[in-house]
């Protein structure tokens, strides 16, 4: 590794620029925020190229004691790497999306955004249990503020709900962490990932972490904060919320729950599958009847995140790799869909679906990109949405055919609600004069959406770029899960005629 503490820089650069933002004018803050996030994006590209997929598990490691047993210990594996890259990619886009939409208290807004980026980066990089906790929970504070100060009319109610849910989860997780530090005699995450907790303890530890991660992801039935938070958040807030913050839940499962408590996790596979199955069907049906664009996409997020939990708890390679690709893809696609909502919201100041219609006429560029992201959301092969969903479902099938049947209904319902949304927004006739007068995408909006579209196709056509860095790390998690992974319910029994056949195809 080269001499620079790259991982610390990922945290310090946004903190520095965020601090600067507070001392300049609105326009200055916009530019500072953009530069800061672009520098971070450049660093993440460097990390991506310098990262050796076949090298050590933890790379770019840094460690300085902070006292009190807590270390400033940073390091990333491939899983953290891809999520860091996703965050760094989305952040400049969020700043761009806020360029004109945010008018009041711009310096503070930009500062909070940069603070949030620093804390999210920290969550993915932290190698110390309590350091992780600070970043993980702290990252939500700027989000509360962004919703609470720059949000819509009911922002207070929304952030209050958000707060209650996460508080509940984080208290339980903290207690569990204290217990873990006491039992394992270490707060190092890499060490804990190899530590075998007693089986009974694993049950409670799993449940405590579940309380926190299930809320973040979110899983049914602790998802009801998400639609409200999205509806009230400004566009860029929604993008980060859906694009990155939800991924912290999935990241938590794969970093903590699965490798640290394999027995505990295996014990709850039926629960996880049932909750995920309910999420797919229930939230998809709810999405079908929404009248608010953002709420519809928020509910679809819950349904998509169920593919993550299905894949992770299938506990096989396709499932876990699929879950990670779903996380990345959903980060891009839902982010882009919220940006698409933002584009028309900025023009008409309403998210009511019925106020639009026929936008293909006056906004053909918008209609094209919105179609791309709609198709990615319904998992059309060739887009990022397909690869993740497909792998996660194939993994689920290996663990449980029932699980796969229920999960796969999501591809029918997903098509129904997304295409119906698209129809009501872009097809039909221009019913309202004000909607008909809206101009097509500006150059700035093209710069926000087109890179995401490119990434969506890249991930859909050559996903190997994204799977290669995570391959060995998924393998390491699988080693931990080896003894508990479910055998599945397929019980293939060969017929008499097959006895002489080559059995090498079996696995």
């Amino acid at each position: 590794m080269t001499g620079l503490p790259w991982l610390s820089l990922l945290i310090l650069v946004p903190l520095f620029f965020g601090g600067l933002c507070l001392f300049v004018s609105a326009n200055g803050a916009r530019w500072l925020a953009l530069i800061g996030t672009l520098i971070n994006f450049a660093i993440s590209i460097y990390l991506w190229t310098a990262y050796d997929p076949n090298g050590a598990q933890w790379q770019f490691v840094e460690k300085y004691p902070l006292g009190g047993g807590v270390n400033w210990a940073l390091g990333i594996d491939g899983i953290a790497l891809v999520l860091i890259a996703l965050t760094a990619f989305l952040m400049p886009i969020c700043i761009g999306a806020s360029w004109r939409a945010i008018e009041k208290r711009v310096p503070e807004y930009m500062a909070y955004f940069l603070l949030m980026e620093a804390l999210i980066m920290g969550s993915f990089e932290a190698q110390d249990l309590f350091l992780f906790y600070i970043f993980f929970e702290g990252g939500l504070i700027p989000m509360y503020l962004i919703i609470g100060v720059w949000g819509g009319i009911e922002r207070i109610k929304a952030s209050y709900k958000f707060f209650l849910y996460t508080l509940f989860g984080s208290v339980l997780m903290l207690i569990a962490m204290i217990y873990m530090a006491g039992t394992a005699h270490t707060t190092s995450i890499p060490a804990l990932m190899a530590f075998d907790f007693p089986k009974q303890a694993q049950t409670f530890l799993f449940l405590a972490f579940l309380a926190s991660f299930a809320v973040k992801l979110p899983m049914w039935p602790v998802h009801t904060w998400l639609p409200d938070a999205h509806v009230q958040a400004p566009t860029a807030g929604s993008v980060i919320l859906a694009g990155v913050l939800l991924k912290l839940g999935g990241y938590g499962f794969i970093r903590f729950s699965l490798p640290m408590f394999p027995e505990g996790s295996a014990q709850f596979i039926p629960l996880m599958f049932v909750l995920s199955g309910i999420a797919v069907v229930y939230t998809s049906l709810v999405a079908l009847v929404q009248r608010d664009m953002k709420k519809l996409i928020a509910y679809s997020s819950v349904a998509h995140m169920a593919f993550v939990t299905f894949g992770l708890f299938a506990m096989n390679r396709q499932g876990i790799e699929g879950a990670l690709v779903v996380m990345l893809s959903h980060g891009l696609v839902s982010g882009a869909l919220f940006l698409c909502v933002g584009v028309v919201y900025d023009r008409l100041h309403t998210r009511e679906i019925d106020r639009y219609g026929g936008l293909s006429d006056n906004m053909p560029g918008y209609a094209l990109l919105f179609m791309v992201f709609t198709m990615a959301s319904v998992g059309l092969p060739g887009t990022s949405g397909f690869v993740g969903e497909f792998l996660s479902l194939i993994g689920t099938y290996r663990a449980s055919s029932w699980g796969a049947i229920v999960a796969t209904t999501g591809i029918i319902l997903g098509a129904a609600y997304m295409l119906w949304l698209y129809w009501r927004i872009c097809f039909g006739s221009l019913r309202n004069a004000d909607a008909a007068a809206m101009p097509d995408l500006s150059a700035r909006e093209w710069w926000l959406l087109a890179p995401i579209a490119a990434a969506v196709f890249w991930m859909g056509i050559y996903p190997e770029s994204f799977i290669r860095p995570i391959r060995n790390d998924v393998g390491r998690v699988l080693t931990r899960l080896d003894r508990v992974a479910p055998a599945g319910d397929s019980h293939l029994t060969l017929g008499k005629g097959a006895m002489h056949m080559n059995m090498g195809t079996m696995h």
Partner: protein
Amino acid sequence: MALKLIVFLPLLAALIAGLGGRWIGKTAAKSVTTGALFIGAILSWPIFFQYIRSSADTAVVPVFTWIHSGTLTVDWALRIDSLTAVMLVVVTTVSSLVHLYSWGYMEEDPGQPRFFAYLSLFSFAMMMLVTANSLVQMFFGWEGVGLASYLLIGFWYHKPSANAAALKAFVVNRIGDFGFSLGIFGTFLVFGTVSIPAILAAAPGMAGSTIGFAGMHVQTMTLLCLLLFVGAMGKSAQLPLHTWLPDAMEGPTPVSALIHAATMVTAGVFMVCRLSPMFETSPTAMHVVTWVGAITCFFAATVGCAQNDIKRVIAYSTCSQLGYMFFAAGVGAYGAAMFHLFTHAFFKALLFLGAGSVIHAMHHEQDMRFYGALRKEIPVTYWVMVIGTLAITGVGIDVGPGFGFAGFWSKDAIIQSAWVSGSVAGTFAFWIGVIVALMTSFYSWRLVFMTFFGPPRWAASEHIQHALHGEHDSPDEEHGDSAHDSHRVATGSGGYHPHESPLTILVPIVLLALGALLAGQLFHGIFVGPNAAPSYWRGIIAFSRKIGEAVESSALWVKLSPTIAMLIGLWIAWNNYIRDPAAPGRFVAMFPAVYKFVANKWYFDELYHFLFVRPALWLGRLFWHGGDEGTIDRFGPHGAAYAVGIGNRVTFRLQSGYLYSYALVMLLGLIGAASWAIWWAK
């Protein structure tokens, strides 16, 4: 290299026309896409002839790795063999002619670059489907053609009916994809691969094995074949997933010809043939394929007899002909299934494009009750439609060298194969096949007679009225009048003069007419002949020489029955629409219930609306208001707030403070944790 050009040129052309259409102009966009497809057609035919001469082998051209996860490897690769070669000539030929036709047909449409881009995108996806070497790439093509179909059905996006039809097509196909996906998952679980040749090689070894699925214990191969077949049923509009196809006629007519007649809807048949060695391992699955095909074949033909919209008649006819192909595959006559797919592509594309020419001449009127007497006005269209009708009804004679139109060879091969298969399902399919041959003849001649014969009935048409009064109907006014009462329409031309279509329209349909004339005559040997076919197919599909031979030596009455049925159908049509035009009305008056049932398509749409659409919306609202708001929020966050004694009013006061309390809790927790750690360290 040629193969890569055939497949990827249309993609390139679609991107140029679609993204650059605004800059390069519509003529350039149309030339690029049409050119790409013509190059494809010119390259495809020699490949097909190489396979006919047995001078080419199966080849797989790798492109690059697509998905690699553990033992699952999926490559982008182009496979070419005798089965793909058939599909390539069908797709490139029909597609290039449809591109050319659209120059004339879509001339006044403002969205031409978009239209041609979609057509080429479709052709690309269809070729990815037929060149797939793995189930997953097949699925890519499968979904890609679905997307193009969705975009083209909804091409005139101002029309609510077009949008509804597009959405319906996509969602119903997704139900099929649900089965297809589960089939792929199961196949991977059982065989450890998604590569088609590997699966087909290993499939016989899995015959007789059992597997757990959704709590049941079932035959492995039956399960996998049936799951995959659900996908085929969706794409090929087989009962009960057929409802999207008639509605898909909302798209422009060239689209109906290319996608909803000649190519995409036959993808299901192609899939079953491609996987035929796999289907052969499960007699149960084969029986299901036969039954589904036969029942669809019959159902769609009955509905086709009672439609008045010219495109809907042909749409139901397509659905019915697909049923023929499926029951052929179901009885093991894959060669006959592919043969009918091949000939059907020509004559059905011809019928659709011919109907388009009629619609063009009749100023977007699609209701045949307002046609009549058109044979003198648009003679070229009339003659090609007659050739198409002779082809679909199967006119021909098999004596000596024999002569017949395309459908004669392929349809008779199917009907006779069903008979010689000897199974219950096969015998059932045979009789269905004969009865439907009668109905096919009836509805096809009914179409010709109502359109081209009798007195003109144009005056009563709104579209013609618009034309006469100089109002210009925009092309997206093309619509079908699905009023079902068969009341008599006043006769008279109203002074309107239909015009024959321009050359860009006539050239493609005349070329297709050649295909409808000759495709059966020239190629029946390599598709189904007991001598030539085995050396053509060479095990690519599970071609049964036995069936081929048995067909040749089957009893005379078996050979003649389709022809006799066809003649009876022609006679009934002539009797009802030429000799005594009042007869259909009398029939309807005599059996009103039967007519209503058939004309309303056996009420499938109404049934589905009642069973699926309304409950889904109802459940959605229930979960939203009753679940999320009424239960989870009430007992969750709101309940919690009340429980700890902070009612809404108090919350309101605390709202500015809660953030800090949260931060405080977190900090306190951390201090506690740190103290614990320090304490423990000592």
